[in-house]
């Protein structure tokens, strides 16, 4: 069927900020969708509040709205733009929920906007637990026994009928938020209570536990002509019980016979047809390992994380074709973009194995509960391709960047056997490594199977890998064995560990012995048709399919999996760099391992190598391609950490040199440089032992900021106010020794400023300077940033610009540089210098219009800023005010303290833009998911040092008519001011205590600065978690509270009595 001509303008909804369960995959799908629609000649209007996305670049859509993704703002956009149609199925759960709401409010009808792709009825049928259950019953498709409940009592009663364990799934939530597996009544009660609170529909599904079944997913597509296909099926390494986003996933399925495969394929196609889905859809199924019995677990009537994975795993661009299907095109009339010869009505055939491993944030959140269940906890994922399972698995493991390159975590060696077996029973993030460890201890396969229920096939492979590892240990430098090991994905680093030598020696020896990988193409069709996809993976085999061209070329290193501290912002810059290289006539080659991102869309670069970002894997590509140089500035710490080894092997780093990077990252060199330039920085010392740390802290003076050297995202960084806390920090948080010193900085209370600049060594252009709402001490990634600055004197800004220029020139920065300052008592101090792309580059690029990554890339290629028409200094500021507001995923991560501090905790960001700061803040805050009520109550519970500051806030809340609640200490201070306050009891009291107040939803805000620190048993911690779990805004920085207060003030009228008049009595 040809495409529709009765519609012209299409509104596409993006997925908003990155949160756990909804990440970069929607930038990938959204970008593809917008491009696909434009390609077909439609005008695309895009709404997305996430500035760190490629899809919000003005080249991707015709009109871009970076406004909060709320029904109110979308209604405004619809009224203004009057689109003919709305495409919501590519914006994740956010997109679907908004479409539903716009429909319910009658907005779509009123403005005659047609919903494209899947219709709302289908969405509802798939999303509403009860409707879905009914549909399955009508279709005679098996589902686990279940019941929808709206009260805890109903849940308990049903559980008593069908028995424990029980799975709880709250309705209409992302990534299984609030759900979980319950073994007894106690945990069931807790989980259901929480689940009902987070579910917008106040419903939970209580379900029979089918843990231990194989979990299989099918990615299916259907067009308006009822043609339906399977793009890819995937088998989870972890059996049912672990959220698929938290499972290790393998494509295609490995242990299914054709009968099982086709049976589940038929079910999947039946469902997509029955739901009348037009576009992509994900079907999750559970299959009994001992029979043909299966259950339908879930249907996602939209593109998803799994579809992004399936696209990268097969080469088949699901989102792009889904967008085209939504405007009427059918599968049999669209070309398969990979072969360019065959058609999209096709089921890809793989001749390799793909493994995906989630990346969890537990390195950041040490206190978090690491067990995996129905609630997703991963922030990102890696994918690897190999010609066998072992190769793809081991490549994926070394892509994770979790401190190991292999199926070996040294600390697990210390575990007692009993502990090891105990941990195997409940899945956690280290299960794969625990299994490897168990095989090292020669546990029997059956024993591990009984504990984990992981299919024998996978366990056998792991056992064989460990057997080979043991064999390798005894036969160092054995050629034949090495060839076998390389084919099974062993890295040089592993061999180096086993042979007690250095990775470099192994690498050199191997090259001498001509043990080299070849590159195979991902072509969707197992080589049946000729393809020219520039998408490759390495393997140890005979024939290579990737050949170096004779063009000038540059390799760009990507930033690997998305994690806290290194998010989609780095992929954004990477993509821009690649595009700049292409513009400049270079062949742009990218190496990356993240299946969710735009950078690994093989249409972006001239050549994509889907490979781990380790020195070995990167060097193999470089050896083949012989590029002019490598760009590391955009790949975050992932790429930066390879610089030393690359330089060591004679590779040219484009742009800022290794020496410059070292001078910024190495404390001593950094200090020397600042001293030389006469630039102030907070007093700082380096300690290599606990005793030394305590002595130095006295010298520097409390409060101090302590952290280990060489970290990204402020890992393990803490503000310490007194010696007792420092003792605890040194004992618990860091493993200090002479090679891993701890840095002690004076913590200066002041305003934080952040600058991103582009430099060619001569000219230093500063596109913009941002001011943080939260004072220094809150990680810059977790602060609300405002552009242009609002409260900083011009002279101070000039000083910062001056310092930036001096540092950039001194370091001879060729490319990007990011500097963080603190403005303390009239003085500017430098906190941090990063000679590379930063988290704020996409935000600043968008609000200032200066395409920073593009310019930086051109500089690396030898252009100068003068050539490009730029002069040194701060670029003239825009009058529109933009704020960047962090977004957190705390409701997904139990037992994580939400207090803002020097360690970064946010997973994403949104933008708010308007012509006053208050309006911009309002939009930013709303977009981040917080509510801004103009009346209600606020609960204040602050630390002693904050009490004076709190008074002002209390007064203002009172003036707005908010009721004040406070704990004793805070309440006393408020009473002294003559304000009415309701005192609430400490947690230790059983009645009317602070937790009851939160649980009962009596307050709209909690302002809490109590007991900072890591202990999870403190009252402060419990109060904060309680607020998160009940969806109540909890502000842990008085600055954030003040900002919100300002917004509320601007929105409401206060009620104040008339001043008493002097009455003249007659």
């Amino acid at each position: 069927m040809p495409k529709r001509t009765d519609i012209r303008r299409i509104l596409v909804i993006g997925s908003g900020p990155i949160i756990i369960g909804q990440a970069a995959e929607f930038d990938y799908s959204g970008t593809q969708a917008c491009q696909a629609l434009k390609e077909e000649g439609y005008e695309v209007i895009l709404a997305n509040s996430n500035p760190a996305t490629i899809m919000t670049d003005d080249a991707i859509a015709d009109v871009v709205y970076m406004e909060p993704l709320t029904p109110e703002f979308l209604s405004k956009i619809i009224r203004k733009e009057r689109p003919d149609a709305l495409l919501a199925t590519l914006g994740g759960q956010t997109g679907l929920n908004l479409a539903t709401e716009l429909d319910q409010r009658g907005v779509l009808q009123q403005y005659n906007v047609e919903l494209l792709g899947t219709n709302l009825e289908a969405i509802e049928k798939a999303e509403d637990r009860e409707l879905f259950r009914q549909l399955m019953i009508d279709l005679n498709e098996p589902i686990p026994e279940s019941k929808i409940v709206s009260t805890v009592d109903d849940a308990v009663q049903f559980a008593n009928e069908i028995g424990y364990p029980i799975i709880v799934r709250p309705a209409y939530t992302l990534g299984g938020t609030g759900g979980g597996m319950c073994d007894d009544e106690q945990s069931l009660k807790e989980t259901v209570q929480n689940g009902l609170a987070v579910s917008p529909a106040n419903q939970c599904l209580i379900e029979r536990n089918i843990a231990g079944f194989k979990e299989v997913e099918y990615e299916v597509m259907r067009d308006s002509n009822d043609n339906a296909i399977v793009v890819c099926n995937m088998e989870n390494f972890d059996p049912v019980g672990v959220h698929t986003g938290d499972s290790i996933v393998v494509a295609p399925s490995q242990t299914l016979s054709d009968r099982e495969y086709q049976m589940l394929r038929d079910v999947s196609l039946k469902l997509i047809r029955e739901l009348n889905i037009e576009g992509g859809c994900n079907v999750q199924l559970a299959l009994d390992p001992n029979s043909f019995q299966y259950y339908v677990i879930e249907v996602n009537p939209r593109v998803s994380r799994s579809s992004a994975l399936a696209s990268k795993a097969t080469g088949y661009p699901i989102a792009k074709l889904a967008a085209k299907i939504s405007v009427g095109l059918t599968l049999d009339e669209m070309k398969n973009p990979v072969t360019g010869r065959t058609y999209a009505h096709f089921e890809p055939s793989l001749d390799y194995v793909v493994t995906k491993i989630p990346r969890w944030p537990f390195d950041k959140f040490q206190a978090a509960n690491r067990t995996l269940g129905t609630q997703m906890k991963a922030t990102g994922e890696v994918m690897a391709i190999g010609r066998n399972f072992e190769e793809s698995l081991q490549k994926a493991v070394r892509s994770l960047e979790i401190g190991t390159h292999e199926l070996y975590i040294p600390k697990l060696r210390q575990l007692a056997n009993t502990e090891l077996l105990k941990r195997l029973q409940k899945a956690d993030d280290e299960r794969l490594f625990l299994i490897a460890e168990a095989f090292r201890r020669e546990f029997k396969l059956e024993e591990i199977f009984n504990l984990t229920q992981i299919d024998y096939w996978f366990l056998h492979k792991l056992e064989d890998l460990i057997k080979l590892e043991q064999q390798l240990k005894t036969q160092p430098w054995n050629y034949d064995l090495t060839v076998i090991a390389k084919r099974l994905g062993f890295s040089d680093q592993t061999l180096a560990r086993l042979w007690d030598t250095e990775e470099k020696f192994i690498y050199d020896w191997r090259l001498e012995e001509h043990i080299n990988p070849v590159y195979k193409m991902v072509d969707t069709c197992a080589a049946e048709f000729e393809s020219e996809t520039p998408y490759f993976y390495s393997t140890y085999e005979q024939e290579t399919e990737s050949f170096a061209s004779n063009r000038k070329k540059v390799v760009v290193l990507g930033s690997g999996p998305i994690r806290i501290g290194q998010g989609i912002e780095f992929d954004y810059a990477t993509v821009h760099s690649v595009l700049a290289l292409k513009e400049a006539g270079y062949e742009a080659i990218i190496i990356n391992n993240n299946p969710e991102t735009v950078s690994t869309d093989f249409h972006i670069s001239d050549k994509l190598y889907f490979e781990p970002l380790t020195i070995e894997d990167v060097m193999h590509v470089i050896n083949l391609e012989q590029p002019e140089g490598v760009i590391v500035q955009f790949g975050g710490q992932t790429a930066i950490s390879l610089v030393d080894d690359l330089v060591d092997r004679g590779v040219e780093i484009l742009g800022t040199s290794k020496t410059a990077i070292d001078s910024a990252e190495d404390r001593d060199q950094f200090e020397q440089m600042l001293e030389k330039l006469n630039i102030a920085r907070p007093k700082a010392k380096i300690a290599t032992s606990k005793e030394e740390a305590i002595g130095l802290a006295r010298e520097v003076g409390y409060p101090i900021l302590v952290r280990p050297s060489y970290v990204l995202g402020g890992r393990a960084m803490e503000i310490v106010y007194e010696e007792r806390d420092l003792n605890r920090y040194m004992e618990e948080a860091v493993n200090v020794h002479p090679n891993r010193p701890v840095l002690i900085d004076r913590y200066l209370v002041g305003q934080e400023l952040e600058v991103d600049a582009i430099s060619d060594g001569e000219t230093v252009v500063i596109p913009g300077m941002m001011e943080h709402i939260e004072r220094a001490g809150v990680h810059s990634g977790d602060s609300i940033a405002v552009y242009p600055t609002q409260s900083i004197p011009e002279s101070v800004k000039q000083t910062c610009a001056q310092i930036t220029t001096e540092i950039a020139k001194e370091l001879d920065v060729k490319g990007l540089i990011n500097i963080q300052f603190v403005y303390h008592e009239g003085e500017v101090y430098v906190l941090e210098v990063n000679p590379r792309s930063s988290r704020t580059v996409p935000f600043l690029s968008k609000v200032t219009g200066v395409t920073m990554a593009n310019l930086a890339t051109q500089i690396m290629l030898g252009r100068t800023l003068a050539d490009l028409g730029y002069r040194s200094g701060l670029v003239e500021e825009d009058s529109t005010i933009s704020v960047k507001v962090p977004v957190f995923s705390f409701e997904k991560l139990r037992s994580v303290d939400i207090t803002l501090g020097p360690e970064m905790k946010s997973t994403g960001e949104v933008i708010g833009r308007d012509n006053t700061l208050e309006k911009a803040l309002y939009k930013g805050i709303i977009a981040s998911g917080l509510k801004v009520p103009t009346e209600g109550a606020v609960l204040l519970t602050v630390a002693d040092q904050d009490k004076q500051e709190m008074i002002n806030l209390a007064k203002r809340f009172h003036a707005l008519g908010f009721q004040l609640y406070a704990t004793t200490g805070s309440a006393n201070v408020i009473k002294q001011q003559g304000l009415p306050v309701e005192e609430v009891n400490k947690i230790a009291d059983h009645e009317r205590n602070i937790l009851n107040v939160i649980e009962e939803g009596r307050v709209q805000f909690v302002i809490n600065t109590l007991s900072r620190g890591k202990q999870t048993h403190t009252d402060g911690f419990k109060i904060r978690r309680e607020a998160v779990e009940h969806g109540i805004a909890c502000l842990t920085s008085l600055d954030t509270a003040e900002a919100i207060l300002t917004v509320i003030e601007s929105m409401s009228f206060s009620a104040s009595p008339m001043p008493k008049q002097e009455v003249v009595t007659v």
Partner: protein
Amino acid sequence: MSKRYLLLEDGTIYEGRAFGAEINDYVGEVVFQTGMTGYQETLSDPSYCGQMVVMTYPLIGNYGINRDDFETVRPALKALIVKEAENYPSNFRSEMSISQFLSQKGVPGIEGIDTRSLVKKIRRSGTMKGILIDDLANLDQVIDYVKQTALPKDQVSQVSAAKPYVVPGRGLRVVLVDYGMKHGILRELTERGCHITVVPYDTTADEVMQLQPDGIMLSNGPGDPKDVLQGIDLVEDLLGKVPIFGICLGHQLISLACGANTERLKFGHRGANHPVKVIETGEAWMTSQNHGYTVSTESIEHTKLKVTHQAINDGSVEGVEHESLPIFSVQFHPESSPGPSDANVLFDHFLNMMKENKLGGVTSCQKEQIFVGS
């Protein structure tokens, strides 16, 4: 594991490891199969008679060999070529590993070769002859031997049933001519309650008609349809007498009998992901295919056949029907196994055709006979 080599007629040697049975000196046609599951069905599909099959999916044998999923009793292929043969299969139905099975059945295998490079070679140069050897002695002689050995033309006689047999049922009576029939076809008819008589490939039209069938099913089978003269004669003689449904080789025989021509494909269609367009409805089906020959499009023009199904990718003929007689056939495998079941509805179509024909009674039959006779 000992070394084993695959030698192609152009002199290319792939070094791998032996699995399955001992080698024989059989020269086979090397073809590739792109299905990711279904190796057991492929192994036992008689259409692979005389061929050495390369599986494009690298891990073969993961779910073992079970007792249920055979398409015939004895594998007809000459060798299996894989990247990795799994020694520890895992599936509740698994009875043995693929290597054990091949050893039992006397089929040699080779693993550990770069199967993707082999597939690309076949894609570029077309299907080739090859042989498995365990050492590289007298290589030139072996190459000459491969070159000089002609591929057989009598595969159908090797795999067809030797004698007729009955699979009783109480429904419509179908005579199924076995050219190397996959059990899947029999299964689909049995599931629909048919009374089936399976007859050898060289059964005559008279013999067939004596069984008083309501319809005739022509099965799949190996090789060049033009080598199966008895089949072409049979269809010619049966035209207009009863409804006929042909699959794969059966489809080619019907086409030849109706005056169309067949030709050899460069490297065939073998896999489970071949999209086919149903011309009448505009639907597209994912089909399972296994054929090295095809009915040439232009040859259909001057016949009484019309194209009903077409390959989406290369536009080749995937199905035909007679303009006036109850005869239709498809190039792909509606019985799947292995592969998707999208086209399964064709068996219902065949049953309806037989029913209608029966109801239509003598008149319509007579008319057709007159037509054919004239």
